[in-house]
């Protein structure tokens, strides 16, 4: 049993190290605290609401950075294995293709965890300096941000397993934006119910297939310090884990049928 996990740990560790040594990701990492500082500035500009604006802006900017890094890292670390042909020396070792996919996914997820923790640390400093306080809801908001990044990573890896880097990046970004607009999609479905039944079915399918990022976004709750029930955290974790598992199964299915020519 131990031997099954050894290659996964090795691939995950190598991917994580590659990300840390990657110049582009390093630059992203430098920019994150700088731009999170912007949220402090925005807070200072909104007289009387400094803490609330700083809380909201820092979570928004953290989401932006987190998603950008998750997409870039997934594509760089996964698709580049195929493009640079390093996969030839990997898959000719006694490892199964699912181990490769899971190893890569775990490596990028570790990076996402690091990014989330750094963003949470910087945001906490920004909120406190704006006169606010870091509450369990703030922590929960960053926890669900991490869940969103896990889903984004799995989608980016799925797309990178059969399409180009550019297309994978664009489609994943599109999926994230569409998944963050769930309530708008529902409203569109309801308004199109009678006038355009065809469009209604398309939107319904999108609502089923697309991940519900909006439900995982706790920016309002965090800004107004609404307490989050533990059940919500459990359900959100279960939802994200299930979505990731299904996406990874699809990736493994594609990868196990793929020839590396």
């Amino acid at each position: 049993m131990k031997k099954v996990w050894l290659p996964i740990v090795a691939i995950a560790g190598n991917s994580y190290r590659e990300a840390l040594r990657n110049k582009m990701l390093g630059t992203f990492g430098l920019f994150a605290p700088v731009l999170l500082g912007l949220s402090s500035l925005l807070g200072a500009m909104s007289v009387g609401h400094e803490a609330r604006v700083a809380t909201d802006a820092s979570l928004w900017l953290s989401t932006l950075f987190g998603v950008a890094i998750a997409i870039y890292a997934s594509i760089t670390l996964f698709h580049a294995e195929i493009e640079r042909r390093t996969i030839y020396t990997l898959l000719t070792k006694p490892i199964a293709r699912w181990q490769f996919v899971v190893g890569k996914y775990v490596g990028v997820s570790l990076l996402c965890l690091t990014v989330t923790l750094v963003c949470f640390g910087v945001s906490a400093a920004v909120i406190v300096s704006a006169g606010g306080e870091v509450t369990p809801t703030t922590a929960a908001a960053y926890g669900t941000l991490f869940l969103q990044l896990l889903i984004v990573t799995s989608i980016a890896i799925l797309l990178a397993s059969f399409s180009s880097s550019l297309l994978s990046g664009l489609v994943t970004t599109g999926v994230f934006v569409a998944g963050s607009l769930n309530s708008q999609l529902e409203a569109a479905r309801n308004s199109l119910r009678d006038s355009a039944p065809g469009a209604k079915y398309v939107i319904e399918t999108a609502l089923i297939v697309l991940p519900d990022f909006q439900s995982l976004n706790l920016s309002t709750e965090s800004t107004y310090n609404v307490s989050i029930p533990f059940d919500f955290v459990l359900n959100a974790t279960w939802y994200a884990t299930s979505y990731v598992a299904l996406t990874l199964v699809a990736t493994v299915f594609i990868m196990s049928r793929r020839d590396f020519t």
Partner: protein
Amino acid sequence: MNAVVELKDVAKSFRVGFRRKRVDAVRHVEFDVKEGEIFGLIGPNGAGKTTTIKMITGLVTPDQGVVRVHGLPTQDIQSRADLGYLPENPYFYEHLTAREMLRFYGQLFGLGGDLLKKRIDDLVERVGLGHAADRQLKRYSKGMRQRAGIAQALINDPKLVILDEPQSGLDPVGRKEVRDLIFGLRDEGKTVLFASHILPDVEAICDRVAVLHLGLIRGVGTLQELTKDTTTRYEIRVTGWKPGDLENAHVLNETASETLVEVTTTDARDMVLRQALDCGATIHSVTPHKESLEDIFIRETKAAS
């Protein structure tokens, strides 16, 4: 001797281009590689060598036929447990040093601890990278990358080593070192399968050879079997005589002191020798030349084309 690699009636085609046109990369390929031998796979570009190797290593699944490594089908990941593979123009993780890269690949085989550390130390010395083992691979020259690639192919101390164009991009010294390394592997009882364009090296190294062209095997055997040990021409060094209009004989080189004559038949050879001796000329040498691998390669590829 046991067959370490077996291919039976193997075929593979790919769809290429916008119209998804079908291209047969490999057709009805059959050969086996026996334990402890150095087996060469030769053929021009596009012959199907790399596709064949990728089917053996499990990177490509054949459309038909059977590929077995150590008696196991290549879909079984255990078929790769005792296999080392160096791809053509290898790429590695540029952020890693050679030592880190070898540790990573070793871990994929479940290796670790002192055993892996010792093996890495031995390998970097063996491939001549001891001085640069802690340098990132992005700072390596092409020859150094090739050496690093050979080291990763040997990290699990495999019984079967597959090298795709291992001498590509190497200078003559590097080529000789790779050649010596391959001999060393055979001395250790390992089986080596390698594809190459550099025919003199294949000729010097291989116990058996398969000639592949347009996806088909044109011949498999020892060099003696493939060449049928036939002499195709003779070179005669002579002083004081020239062949004139003699059929099947022509001058290769002429200096003030001697003439180098080439003849392609035994009759022509005997005629040249008789005439030269009759004229009182001095015969310095008569050198028979057997068919080379290059001759077979050109003959087979021309015939197929």
